[in-house]
Each structure stands twice: as C-alpha cells, then as structure tokens.
C-alpha cells in the first residue's frame, strides 16, 4: 500500500469515526454528543426553529424478555428509523 492509499483509507476511517461518535449504533439517530453540539449551534443562531422530542417505549422490556436482546435491538432500530423518516 502506498502513502496516498493509506491516507485515503485513514480519511475514510476518520469520517466513519466522526459519524460513529455522534450517532447511536442501534438507531442511527444522533446521540448526546451531537445534541450537545447542536444545542450550542442553536444558541448562537437567530430565528432557528428548534424542536426537542422526548420519547419512551412502553413495555419494551417485554420484547427483550420474550424474544431476546437481538429482537429488542431490532425493535429499537426500527423505531429509530420511523422517527428519522417522519421527523427529519
């Protein structure tokens, strides 16, 4: 591998790290770090409409108990996808 290929691979890896650091594995939604950075950006922006949504999944534990953790993680992922598709 030459230097250019190594640097290109590092750039891709870095972009992946940046994305991973600011998103949740299971939902792909932005995480607390991204929220904190967005909050700072909103605080300095004028006239930017901002919505904060707090959501909870009722009786979620039953999914894990009944079908296992993988099914629970799939459910969280699907809910994250629904939120993403309907709010963004």
């Amino acid at each position: 591998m030459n230097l250019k290929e190594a640097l290109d691979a590092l750039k891709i890896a870095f972009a992946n790290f940046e994305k991973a650091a600011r998103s949740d594995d299971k939902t792909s939604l932005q995480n607390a770090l991204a929220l904190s950075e967005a909050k700072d950006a909103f605080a300095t922006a004028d006239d930017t409409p901002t919505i904060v949504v707090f959501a909870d999944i009722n009786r979620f534990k039953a999914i894990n108990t009944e079908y296992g953790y993988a099914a629970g993680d799939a459910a969280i992922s699907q809910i994250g996808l629904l939120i993403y598709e309907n709010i963004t």
Partner: protein
Amino acid sequence: MSERLQYPIGIEYREPRPRGALGGALLGALFGYGLAQNSGGAIAGGAIGGALGNQSLPLNEALRQKFAEKNLGIISFYRLGTHAAKILFRHNKAYWTLESRTPESPEMNLEQIEDWLYGDLVQKLDDFLSQNDLRLQP
C-alpha cells in the same frame, strides 16, 4: 503484507481478519481518535499504527469494516463468550442475525479464535446475500 494464518490441525480454514499496514493504521486511528476525539488524533494514531505494521482490527471493528464494504451496517455485535459471536443487521427492510461458534479446540488461541469467527461470519454473510438475492429475483 498479508500472511495466511495457520489454525490447529483439524480446524477448517476461515479467512482471517485483514492484517498489515492498513489494519495497523486503522487500529492506530481508532486509538488516536479515542484519545484525542478529533481528526488530528486519528491521523496521528493512524500514522503510528501504520508504522507498527502487522496488526489486526478487533473482531467487532473488522466486521463493521467488512459490512460497510457491502453497504450494510451492523446494528449490534454480541460476543457470546470467548468462542462465539452474533451480529444483527438490516437488509432489504428486514432484520437478520448471523451467529458463529468456533469448533471445539483447546489449541486455538484468542487471535485464532477472533480470526476464525471473522472468516466464518464473512462467509455466512456472503452465503446469506447470495441466497437472499436469488430469492428476491422475479
């Protein structure tokens, strides 16, 4: 540089995790990013890792890289004790799991176990994708 890893006699061969400068660089970048939380840390870590050379990524990261090459994202990685692993991923609007367990062999060390699980899960993913794509054809 990549070398063919040897497993104990009687263990069926599986493709090991990628080794060499890229693996070392990515591993270094991971650590660099973890320490500094910025691109400078990742690049510096990558340079150090690349210089160190013949390293492999941890199983979780190696699998995530492989899945990313196929435009798939791993939702969850489960380590089921030392000898087994399971992954959850999304494909064609459905959720799937793949699981692998190494053959019983007290002679396999941790590196060999990680490599074997990687190769087995990659092989199972390839089989899954080819079967799934065939099934989806009209």
